[in-house]
């Protein structure tokens, strides 16, 4: 029997942790990072199985508004002798994100994760480098993947676009990884205050026209990701996108985060994604 609902693999190995806020930094407002500490339990390291592109669901406080948890990419992970530190990188756009940006060290928050399916290599390692393309806060999904590529000896350029210069928050962290891999940071702002004056996909397209990349990995506004997908199709370069949708639960129970798939069915962003191949999504 044909099923209209894709039954993807359940997300394995996630749990609801009690995490303690150890740092909140503004880069500047509305961009912020929150570092959360999850102690090992019985010597067992938490988030050990977390892969780049996976996400967590969290909330500053259980109240009436915001009511549901919010989804955040795992921006960075650090592990020491007996704790795991999860860093999330966010932008204040509503009450949920504002609550997190106003957290203070010592506060305990619920942290469900790691959730979803992360990035995998779209092309086998070739002589061609990859391009990572971030639009604004979409960069949050790409840091761990950039580091994974670097650690595997693969070069990449990091494209970072936004409206104004301040929308390219934490660009130095991406630049450091890109340079270490043998690539570079390429910026664009619509306001023209930093890098290329216009869309980030414009310098990307120039490079694609010269056949520079073997794979594209992107996260950002839907318009940007759709353009990257179109360019990937035009220049026959495969890639993946980390999608963002409204999510109720983050673990496949509410069926709220539908993503239209090329096969005519829906996928769940939380469970089947948030990372999808560029050519499987209906943009």
């Amino acid at each position, binding site marked *: *029997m044909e099923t209209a609902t894709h039954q993807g693999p*359940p997300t394995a190995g996630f749990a609801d942790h009690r995490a303690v806020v150890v740092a909140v930094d503004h880069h500047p407002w509305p961009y912020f990072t929150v570092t959360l500490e999850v102690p090992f339990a019985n010597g067992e390291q938490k988030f050990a199985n977390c892969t780049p592109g996976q996400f967590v669901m969290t909330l500053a406080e259980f109240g009436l508004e915001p*009511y549901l948890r919010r989804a955040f990419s795992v921006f960075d992970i650090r592990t020491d002798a007996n704790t795991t530190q999860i860093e999330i990188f966010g932008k204040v756009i509503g009450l949920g994100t504002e609550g997190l940006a106003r957290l203070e060290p010592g506060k305990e928050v619920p942290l469900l994760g790691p959730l979803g399916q992360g990035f995998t290599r779209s092309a086998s390692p070739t002589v061609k480098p990859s391009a990572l393309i971030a639009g604004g806060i979409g960069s949050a999904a790409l840091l761990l993947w950039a580091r994974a590529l670097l650690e595997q000896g693969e070069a990449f350029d990091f494209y970072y676009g936004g409206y104004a210069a301040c929308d390219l928050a934490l660009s130095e962290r991406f630049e450091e990884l890109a340079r270490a891999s043998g690539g570079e940071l390429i910026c664009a702002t619509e306001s023209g205050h930093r890098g290329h004056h216009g869309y980030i996909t414009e310098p990307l397209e120039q490079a694609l026209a010269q056949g520079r990349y073997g794979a594209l990995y992107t996260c950002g506004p839907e318009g940007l990701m759709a353009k990257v997908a179109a360019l990937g199709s035009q220049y026959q370069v495969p890639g993946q996108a980390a999608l963002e*949708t409204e999510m*109720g639960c983050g673990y*496949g*129970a509410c*069926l709220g985060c539908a993503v239209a798939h090329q096969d005519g069915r829906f996928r769940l962003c939380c469970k089947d994604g948030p990372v999808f191949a560029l050519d499987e999504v209906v943009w």
Partner: protein
Amino acid sequence: MSTVDLSVKVGPLELANPVLSASGTFGYGLEFAPLTRLERFGGLVTKGLSLEPLRGNPAPRIFETRGGMLNSIGLQNIGIEAFLSDVLPGLADFPPKVVVNLFGYEREDYSTLAARVDAVEHVAAVELNVSCPNVKRGGIQFGHDPGQLEELVASVRKATSKPLIVKLSPNVTSPVALGKAARDGGADILSAINTVIGMAIDTRTRRPRLHTIKGGLSGPAIRPVAVRIVYDVAREVGLPVIGIGGAETADDVLEFMLAGASAVQIGTALFRDPMQPNRILQDLEQRLVSEGVGSVRELIGAINIE
């Protein structure tokens, strides 16, 4: 800790405790059981199932509002056959009673579905969804017309001997009239309420927040509406009632029971905190102990309005 009796009898349906998961709030099965402790629930109600799989509505399907959320999932489901073959066997050793939520387009769809599960051992009861607000033909015509509802329930009654629950819509002038129609058609139990039709608009883009424009509101925002309808229906229809609508704590469960509910379904609260079932049952037990109540059954309809 002294033990209190949490077991309830909801018409012909016997439950270890009065707390169930609501339809549409935990998928179908056990994938999340280790996380959510759903195994402690008295029962769980499946996502609405139809004869054929349904793909559901396009995004955006949900939007959070103060104290709740609007949803318009559109009854996405894997279909009854996939549920029975792929999901239900995994629930066989699961302590909670499994209630299948069924919906169709025509009266025959409901009776065919009910007949399909009639002989299935691990199906403890059938809940009819006659009130989904989110699809053009989700059975809502039955849930809003007493005459049609009575005929529908009567035809389902002939198709199954399982305990039969009819889930009432709050989006009608008189839920009691619909409850009486369901009773006269042969329902054993009423559950109330389904989501309340609502709507939200993004004032910057001037676009509706949901693809389908309107959706169903759930969460604590609707609890007083649900308590009122449970109170009316329990007093005036004469069937046992399962309360649904924004319950998220043991106190909320007790409120529904005092209003007349014999059991309560937990829905939206599961999304934000999958451990909530555990806490509800723990708190419920402690609350009864501290109040010297030996059995939770003593509280059903025990509202004091003198």
